[in-house]
């Protein structure tokens, strides 16, 4: 009893609009929450100025940055500014908060993008092959590796990797940015956990898809194993996998704080933590807004990917 479909394009636009409204609500909620919560964590003046600074200096600092006004006034002012595209200045860096955030976010975006691409590719191949011979040697091996991957503390791996690959073997630079080589270690460490998780999901989903009726049809048609796995089953099995990929990508977009800290990678995760540590509220808020927006866009892409993969969703 499906209602007669109207044009898929119209439906898509309506869907995007609906999602945008919902995300806007979430975004506003997020801003309200972060604004007030972060201000509960303490006074930026105490941190910006040295402990020996006099009370007058602190008062003057607060006055200078409008921190003496009632919270609600500060909030109204902030909202007013944001609406006109002004996200305020960073206290610490004396530059527009948005610039600071966008700079850092670009790095995070690339890191997330490259990592997730590699993870997705590798996890799909490994997970599919494991599912095809479920219970076999490769399955066991891949599940031990992926479980291990999902349960190792990442900072541990990061430091050991630096000691081994950069100091002892001197194959790779220890940290920082610059050449492509600099990306290898952070990406490898970031790779581990999502890989472990996604392999498991791919495997589970593929086992389901491989036992489905249409795979039976394909076998009855005489289709070879390769196409059965990677053409027939995989595309069907991708839906739950995409959801998990989305979740993992979202957490990468939110910044890989620890990896960024260790590898001196100027991403948004470390920026956020540093900023809250220094009570640089404008940067925290701008960073949250930017990452939340990015995550919203990514979720939208994921929905589009659903529609692309599964024609049934297009209506």
């Amino acid at each position, binding site marked *: *009893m*499906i*209602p*007669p479909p109207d044009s898929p394009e119209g439906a898509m636009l309506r869907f995007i609009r609906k999602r945008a409204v919902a995300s806007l609500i979430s975004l506003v909620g997020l801003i309200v929450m972060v604004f007030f919560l972060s201000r509960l964590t303490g006074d930026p003046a105490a941190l910006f100025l040295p402990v020996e600074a006099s009370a007058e200096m602190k008062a003057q600092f607060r006055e200078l940055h409008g921190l003496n006004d009632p919270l609600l006034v500060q909030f109204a002012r902030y909202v007013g500014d944001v609406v006109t595209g002004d996200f305020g200045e960073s206290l610490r860096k004396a530059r527009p908060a948005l610039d600071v955030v966008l700079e850092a976010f670009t790095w995070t975006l690339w890191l997330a993008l490259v990592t997730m691409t590699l993870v997705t590719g590798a996890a799909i191949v490994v997970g599919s092959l494991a599912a095809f011979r479920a219970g076999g040697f490769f399955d066991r091996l891949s599940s031990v590796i992926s479980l291990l991957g999902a349960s190792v503390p990442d900072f541990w791996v990061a430091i050991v990797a630096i000691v081994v690959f950069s100091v002892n073997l001197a194959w790779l630079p220890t940290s920082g940015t610059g050449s492509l080589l600099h990306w290898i270690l952070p990406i490898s460490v970031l790779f581990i956990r999502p890989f472990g998780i996604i392999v498991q999901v791919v495997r589970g989903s593929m086992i389901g898809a491989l*036992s*489905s*009726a*249409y795979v*039976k*049809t*394909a*076998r*009855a*048609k*005489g*289709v*070879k194993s390769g*196409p059965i796995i990677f053409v*027939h089953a995989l*595309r*069907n099995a991708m839906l739950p996998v995409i959801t998990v990929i989305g979740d993992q990508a979202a957490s990468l977009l939110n910044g890989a704080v620890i990896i960024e800290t260790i590898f001196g990678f100027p991403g948004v995760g470390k920026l956020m933590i540093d900023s809250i540590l220094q009570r640089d509220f404008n940067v925290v808020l701008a960073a949250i807004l930017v990452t939340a927006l990015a995550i919203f866009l990514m979720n939208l892409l994921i929905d589009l990917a659903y529609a692309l*993969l*599964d*024609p*049934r969703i297009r209506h």
Partner: protein
Amino acid sequence: MAEHLLEVRNLSVEFHTAAGVVKAVRNISYHLDRGETLAILGESGSGKSVSSSAIMNLIDMPPGRISAGEILLDGVDLLTMPANQRREVNGRRIAMIFQDPLSHLNPVYTIGWQIREALTTHGTASAQARAEALRLLTRVGIPEPEHALGKYPHEFSGGQRQRVMIAMALALRPDLLIADEPTTALDVTVQAEVLALLEELQQETGMAVLIITHDLGVVAEIADRVVVMEKGELVEAGTVREVYRNPQHPYTRKLIAAAPGKGEMHEPAARTAPVLSVRDVRKRYGAFEALKGVSFDLMPGETMAVVGESGSGKSTLARILLRLDEPDAGSAHWKGRDLFTLSPGELYKLRRDLQMVFQDPTQSLNPRMTVYQLVSETWIIHPDILPKAKWRERVAELLVQVGLGPEHMGRYPHQFSGGQRQRIAIARALALEPQLIICDEAVSALDVSVQAQVIALLDKLRREMGIAFIFIAHDLPVVRDFADHVMVMRKGNVVEFGTVRAVFETPREDYTRALLAAGLDPDPDVQAAHRAARLQRAS
């Protein structure tokens, strides 16, 4: 003796399950020649599909295992063939179509792609495959075939999907087509069309057809010979007429006897004051009009059958009467009160009077509750019916009443067969001592022999307890032996309403006549006559 196209010899297959090793088929043998149609007849659990899966190499090993036997295709044993040769047989020499084409077609690829794949897998060039796919779709009668190639399975109706499956199966003109319950979930009119198509194509190509079914009507319509299976064993074989006229095995006899539509028809009493009076019920889902103004009266203690094909709105009607869905307009007066305007509190009281039995007992019984919990839950919800001390006793009573035993109380639904589960569902409905039970396709999912038993049970309850029934079905023969009145629905409208005799013997509407004509009769001779008549009408 000339070599058969296909010969199954002493095949035994077993499966490892939670309950131990199950011998799915034991030592069965049958054969099939070119141009011939063999039916494998059996109910659920008979193992009728296992041998065909073995032929197609579709048995998962483990948990399955072919423990003995051979399957000869033109004298060559498929079971000992190397894997790559074996794969070449599938699609090229033997093709298969299945029940439920929706789940057997890959939902994410266009049907054009899927048909082409059948061809290219076995070496057809892709340009040629494209042309061939178009030809095949045209041949199986898909409208606008050019356009249809780019559509996805979910965009077709059930009958069209089965036609697509057939096109795909026949792409390489196989010597043998295996059809596993190809028409089971389809409406009767569509079923007739699909079977006719299969026959035509068989005549065109001279292929052999192995059809697996539980339906005697299908056997009568299409098969030359039939083998009957029960619990993994082949109990009877012969030509269709022989087996029908002169069944040897008690099981075959039971099966034939259970076929519906042969008993006495009810003669309803004169109509008095209705207990349920439904007027002009309307319901839309978005742009789709499910009900376009349905009205009827139901007398106390009477059975009214609602018959219609998919999309007729019959299930929507049931859901609305039980307030599982809200109507857009109309009224339904139950003992003088409009069901549609009741407050939640009043509705809760009224639930005792109106109950429902669903199509699939596997789904309508919570898998994590025991039979005792399932039945007694009604008294937790309606605590004033029965004091807790008497629950156990009453559950036992009810179970006996529906033909089960008190010892079943502690078991879970999955430990029962389909028919038994439906009995549990009925016991649960009875626990509230209702005055009206709405049965939504309550026997459609059951085997024929079980169907008859459940219908007999319902009829007994009606007689003994004076419960009124609204019995929803897509199949006319089922309601013939049971209903007082029949209401035929089509596309949200009531097409015809009358006593069961009036509807079956003197149908007023073309649609009703078409429904009756499309129904398959288990008697091969009667069915042959039907067919002749149909062909005559067509020409």
